[in-house]
């Protein structure tokens, strides 16, 4: 960091100012003049109906804060799914295009289990175990038999995802399912972020969904735990060494196939947990397997294949692109994440944190 400042003083200053401005945007109460500037001037520059709408949306701090929090919490969901995908790819070079199916399947299983037991929290272990078991099957029956045959592995997982999608449609139909969080979690909480100031001088604090915040915290804890496990424990370091040099891993006498199965099961289980989270945030429906597969592909391409911090960074960027895009440019919101991907590919083909 110090070296970066010394080498690129101008850029460091720009980044510092941008960060300070961002913090101000988040924590300060936006002065009226600033709101007017956004509404009238920025809206006016763009012009037309779109400019008017855009300016209006831009001038409301509540829109900005909600989009920001939505983005960060959506990033938590993306991270859960993409971390499993990238972990599996990083260690085994397996591209599992059935990862989205594991997500949706885990979600459905979690839904059924929560309905049956009446406990939302139990949906998580259930989804984890079932998706992990499916992952183990995939690893043993598909990937192990086709080691080194990238393309065939990919084709087989595409086939499996088509079959699973139809089986799930068969069982659960085309309806939307929502996994209901317990009442103590579903009420919104007041955050410490000011969204506006009333004319009486009273400060209005933003209310935000507590369940999304809890999941965000859980995802951060999980991410940090994964990072620590990979960087600070013996097994983790061995796995990381195995990423660089497969032969070395087998030379240490570690039962490499057992490690592979465990990592695969863990990654698949994370996707299952992602399904429960997605089912609680939003809903579960056919087609979301492909949608979340695509999102996690983009996350790992942007962040760098095989890197856990990369998955976190990619998830944050893509999550924010999705929600900020939806808040300000509703029409083309879906395209932003692809633009980010294209830009990253053009300048850093291996992803932001990927190694060349």
């Amino acid at each position: 960091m110090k070296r970066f400042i010394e080498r690129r003083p101008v850029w460091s200053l720009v980044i510092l100012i941008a960060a300070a401005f961002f913090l101000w945007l988040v924590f300060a109460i936006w002065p009226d003049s600033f709101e007017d500037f956004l509404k009238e001037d920025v809206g006016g520059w763009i012009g037309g109906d779109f400019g008017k709408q855009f300016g209006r949306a831009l001038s409301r701090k509540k829109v900005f804060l909600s989009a920001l929090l939505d983005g960060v919490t959506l990033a938590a969901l993306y991270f859960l799914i993409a971390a499993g995908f990238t972990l599996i790819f990083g260690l085994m070079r397996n591209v599992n295009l059935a990862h989205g199916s594991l997500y949706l399947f885990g979600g459905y299983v979690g839904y059924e289990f929560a309905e049956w037991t009446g406990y939302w929290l139990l949906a998580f272990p259930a989804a984890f175990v079932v998706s992990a078991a499916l992952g183990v099957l995939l690893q043993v029956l598909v990937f192990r038999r086709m080691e080194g045959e990238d393309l065939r592995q990919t084709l087989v997982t595409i086939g499996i995802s088509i079959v699973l999608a139809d089986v799930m449609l068969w069982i659960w139909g085309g309806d939307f399912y929502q996994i209901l969080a317990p009442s103590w979690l579903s009420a919104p909480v007041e955050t410490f972020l000011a969204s506006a100031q009333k004319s009486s001088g009273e400060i209005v604090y933003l209310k935000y969904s507590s369940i999304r915040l809890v999941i965000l915290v859980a995802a951060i804890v999980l991410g940090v735990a994964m990072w620590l496990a990979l960087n600070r424990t013996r097994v983790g370091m061995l796995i990381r060494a195995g990423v660089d040099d497969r032969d070395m891993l087998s030379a240490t006498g570690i039962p490499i196939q057992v490690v592979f199965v465990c990592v695969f099961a863990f990654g698949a289980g994370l996707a299952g947990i992602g399904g429960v989270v997605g089912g609680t945030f939003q809903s579960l429906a056919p087609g979301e397997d492909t949608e979340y597969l695509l999102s996690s592909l983009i996350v790992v391409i942007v962040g760098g294949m095989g890197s856990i911090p990369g998955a976190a960074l990619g998830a944050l960027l893509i999550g924010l692109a999705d929600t900020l895009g939806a808040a300000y440019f509703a029409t083309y919101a879906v395209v932003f994440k692809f633009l980010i991907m294209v830009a990253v590919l053009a300048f850093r083909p291996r992803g932001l944190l990927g190694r060349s």
Partner: protein
Amino acid sequence: MAVTEHPGGETARQGSGFWPSVWNAPASRWGFAAILLLIPAAAGDFWLLQVYGWTFALGIVALSLQFLGGYGGMVSLAQMTIAGFAGYMVAIFGTSSVEHISLGWPWWLNIPAAIFLAVIFGTITGALAVRTEGIYTIMITLAIAAAFFFFVNQDYVLFNGFSGFNSVLPPTLFGVDWREPTAYYYMTLFFAVLAYGVVLYVSRSPFGLALQGVRDNPRRMAALGFNVTAHRIAAYAFASVIAAVGGLLLVWSNAQVSPGTQSIDWVINILIIAVVGGMSRPIGPFIGAFIFVLLENWSETALAWVGLSPERFKLVIGLGFLAIVLWSRDGVLGIWESWRARSRRDPLTGRAPGDDA
């Protein structure tokens, strides 16, 4: 990432030009050609349009994937997207029911412009995809395909959003209505044979040979003086021409183009067609397309027959695809090759003729 076994040996050197190999073709080939030409005399409109015409048009799009995947080792999922892009362009430059967008250019300007822009689009896609190697290609092209699908779904300025364009008709050349079943059949047959012949011819040209060299060993190709990246991008450009032609035929068959034309499902379907048919030779995609179209049209009947809901069509496709990928390295072509090798083998010695001891 070699896609398949590449049996190029047998067909490799039947004369160095294209025509000699055509004239020397065995009688079975001539018979097959005669059947293709005579089909409209026997087949009904449904078969001509929905089965054969659709097979040729889908086969052409899948052929562009076969060229990239089989000869170039690059499995691109963006081929249907390029085809759909060409369809959109022809609707925008030409005539359609959406009069406030369509420009109404004459066909001789409209069609070349559509193909040209589709090639530009495909080349940019390729330039992005070849920055990384191997399995990344599938993921990146899938993401590009999804991006285009979502974009046209949302954009009403140029692509008319969810509803797309209707009444996109082929030009009435030589006084023929090319959407009439027999005419459509011959038009798609003509372009299918043309595309097939061109791919076969180019596969033995310096460009095609070098592409196969790049597939097998990019490092060595650079050490022979070839610019590997440029070659790969050029392959995308070439494949885009084929995909664009297939896209126009597809759009004309329905007279409409919409986001659904290149939905994720269809993007995957093209992969299924190419893989099921076999990627080692350009005939593979057409075999795959024929099987796909037959399944698409008759799986409902077959499913009802075994007591399943007709909705399980995708299950049939998925399981069939899985079976082919698991049991054959080169789709139907691979099964055919191994069956032929087995039947040629002497039952007593277990040796194929020509095998040295």
